[in-house]
């Protein structure tokens, strides 16, 4: 382990318990030296974000202290953090989509002309900063229209503009293409050369190796120590992170696709900004295959999923599932065709956090004859039995199935969702970011189940912003960019990450004939 005599920032013995009883940090020590890029790794749910939110004043620890240059400080809120020169770029961006880059950048410290914002000055500041740090952004364009990589640059500039010398980046690469990641790394190294200190959160070990000087490893809320990156191998880090060796390789036989279950023809979806979020696309998913949709988020995937599941409307085209047109069907009607849906956001759509695991597991099947008596009453014993079985089969860690979902960890909440969706003999599974933000164990489990279900004859449509996932798990791939399909890769294992990145960024696209091969009968 490396010693840090000249720590600019130290966190000592930090403990944080959330209102739902989850201990996110347990006696964590953390320190960074001036001018370094310090990696913070740990699998999802390890408590990285919580620790950094404490540093940024967004969360308050039950125990522990924070020292800045040897002086103990309390950080009551983000403004205090900013005053101490600490800036944070969040996992989810906190920009106002309808405002321009310059307006977002100066928000909170606006240059004024009388009572009004001095727009010209804001633009000047933005351009100057952009120049100084070599982060290219167009000060005038609306944030809404920017690609993710650029939004991130705006966030970084915003933090720098407020005087951040210690910059926290929470999983900045999670949403980027390989090309954008490379660019980001160059920019971060430049920032470091200019004397800034950077805390870089990730769970991608190759990124830590490529970028960081030192790394702190976290596992289930505890620090596993801090190391010079040069001294530890990826395997070492991984073992400390997970507590065992993991290979997130999915083992699967080649797919044996049969007839098409989902058929999409000339589908166009207009979003509330009157833009074609999905623009005249056609594809099909066959029984026994996993078709992945790769693409940077915000390129029409959400709207597509909403249309397929009945949650959203579509303007033109046809969608049919098991040969039936779904245009006039309710959400329930679509589900009754054998459609299962793992939603992108499990807390918004996937569960009712205040209800018990049981009540969440039966939401689709609650009026099924198996769960109801002949009278008008529900059969509580049957519900209990079914729930117990599912909890067991899906290894949902809980004290009882009557426990509120809110009190589970992210991975176990996702297992509740998955258990419900996978247990209704699905003919078509729409898996939208099925493993986002959950631990390795749950991730492995869910990916394996998806492959099993494929082998049992389900058609799987996988939407994932995680390149590794979508490349490994899918049999075939399509890439979405700007609401269109820009490529179809029949054998997902045949394409390189870089090439995929080019399609995702819209820098390259296949011919119509090539893309047209994705339609089957």
């Amino acid at each position: 382990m490396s010693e840090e005599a000249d720590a600019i920032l130290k966190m000592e013995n930090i403990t944080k318990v959330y209102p739902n009883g989850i201990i996110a940090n347990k006696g964590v020590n953390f320190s960074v030296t001036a001018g370094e890029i310090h990696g913070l790794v740990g699998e999802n749910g390890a408590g990285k974000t919580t620790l950094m939110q404490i540093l940024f004043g967004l969360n308050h620890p039950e125990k522990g202290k924070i020292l800045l240059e040897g002086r103990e400080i309390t950080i009551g809120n983000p403004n205090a953090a900013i005053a101490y020169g600490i800036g944070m770029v969040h996992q989810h961006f906190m920009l106002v989509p309808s405002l321009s880059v310059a307006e977002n950048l100066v928000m909170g410290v606006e240059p004024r002309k009388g009572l009004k914002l001095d727009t010209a000055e804001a633009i000047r500041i933005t351009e100057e900063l952009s120049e100084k740090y070599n982060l290219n952004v167009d000060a005038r364009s609306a944030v809404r229209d920017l690609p993710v990589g650029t939004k991130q640059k705006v966030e970084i500039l915003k933090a720098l503009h407020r005087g951040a010398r210690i910059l926290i980046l929470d999983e900045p690469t999670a949403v980027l293409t390989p090309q954008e990641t490379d660019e980001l790394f160059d920019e971060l190294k430049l920032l470091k050369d200019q004397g800034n200190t950077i805390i870089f959160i990730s769970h991608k070990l190759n990124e830590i190796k490529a970028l960081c000087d030192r790394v702190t490893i976290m596992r289930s809320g505890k620090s596993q120590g801090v190391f010079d990156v040069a001294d530890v191998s990826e395997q070492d880090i991984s073992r400390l992170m997970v507590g065992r060796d993991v290979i997130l390789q999915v083992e699967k036989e080649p797919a044996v696709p049969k007839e098409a279950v989902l058929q999409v023809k000339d589908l166009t979806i207009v979003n509330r900004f009157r833009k074609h979020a999905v623009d005249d696309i056609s594809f099909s998913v066959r029984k026994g295959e996993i078709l992945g949709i790769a693409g940077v988020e915000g390129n029409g995937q959400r709207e597509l999923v909403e249309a397929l599941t009945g949650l959203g409307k579509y303007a033109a085209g046809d969608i049919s599932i098991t040969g039936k047109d779904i245009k006039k069907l309710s959400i329930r009607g679509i589900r009754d065709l054998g459609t299962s849906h793992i939603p992108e956001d499990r807390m918004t759509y996937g569960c009712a956090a205040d209800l018990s695991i049981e009540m969440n597991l039966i939401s689709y099947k609650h009026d099924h004859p198996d769960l109801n008596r002949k009278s008008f009453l529900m059969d509580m014993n049957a519900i209990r039995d079914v729930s117990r079985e599912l909890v067991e089969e899906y290894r949902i860690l809980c004290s009882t199935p009557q426990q509120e979902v809110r009190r589970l960890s992210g991975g176990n909440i996702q297992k509740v969702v998955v258990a419900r969706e996978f247990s209704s003999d699905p003919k078509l599974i729409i898996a939208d970011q099925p493993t986002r933000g959950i631990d390795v164990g749950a991730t492995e489990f869910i990916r394996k189940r998806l492959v099993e279900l494929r082998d049992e004859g389900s058609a799987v449509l996988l939407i994932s912003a995680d390149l590794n996932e979508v490349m490994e798990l899918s049999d075939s791939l399509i890439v979405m960019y700007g609401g269109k399909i820009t490529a179809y890769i029949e054998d997902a294992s045949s394409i390189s990450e870089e090439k995929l990145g080019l399609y995702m960024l819209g820098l390259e696209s296949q011919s119509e004939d090539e893309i047209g091969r994705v339609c089957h009968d």
Partner: protein
Amino acid sequence: MTKSQRMFEVYRTGLVILIALLLALVIILLVSDVPGEAMKLFLIGPLDSLRHFGNVLEMMIPLLFTGLAISVMFSASQFNLGAEGAFFFGAIGAAFIAVNWHLPPVIHPTIAILWGGLIGSIFCGIPGFLKIKWGSSELVSSLMFNYIAYFFGLYLINYFLRDVNAGAMVSYPFAQSAKLIRLIPKTKVHFGIIIAALMVVFTAVFLYRTRWGYRILVIGKNIRFARYSGINTDRAIILSQVLGGFIAGVGGSIEVLGMYRRFTWQLLPGYGWTGIIVAILARNNPIYVPVAAFFLAYMRIGADIMSRSTDMPNEFVAIIQGIIIILIAASSFLAKQRHKMVVKEAMS
């Protein structure tokens, strides 16, 4: 909720009530010239005779109905305040039948009560319908509808039911066959209390043991999840409002048929508002509604008795109720203690 958390909620509610009562005593101390006497009457007056205790039970009956009605509507996270109007309007509906129809005993009140319930369900169903159809806030529309109920109701009484020979604006007397039988001699406690008890059981079973109740609860907790799961959310919303309105309407009917000989209300009786406090205290759970209704009824009768023989006005109950609502709704009240408990539990 874990057991300790549920206990914590009970403890929190108990503490709120205690604080409110203490404040009540302080107010008495400050205002009254005979504070000792006033406090005694307020606290144990309801127990000093069968008649007084009977008053508590009589008061409890309408509160049970409105408390249940609101619990059902609020369970779907629909803040429909129409229980007041539904109660009043239901009562008028029952009065019509009690005055104008001639039926055998048991059947007469049954029809009158069901008719009152039907009117109540239409009344509370409308704000629900406006909500799902045009997205208008049920809170605002139900509030407005209460005034419509009030003035339209007075109009109906005045033009169609008014006994011109009576001195005040009251209806013709109810037919004897329509009245609910009294259960306890020397009190007015009537058969309605048994219907109320059945209604408690019915709503509890409905909400927690049937698929329709399940849908209402899921909608109340996360309507997007309900929709995603394929639940017809519009239908469940309407059902919850219609059922809530029905219970309130039945409550109004039972109140007039059990307690009065004519329809005499010139003002909205206010049970719908107090029912909101009942539902809040009971956390929308029908099982707890009787406890909350009893408590509020007891307090009101206590204040009544006190005001009759001392210089304390009984309106001060409103202050206590206000304090209770504020403290219970304030999620940060005792939040620190709750968090400490969570931390302790988690770390152990």
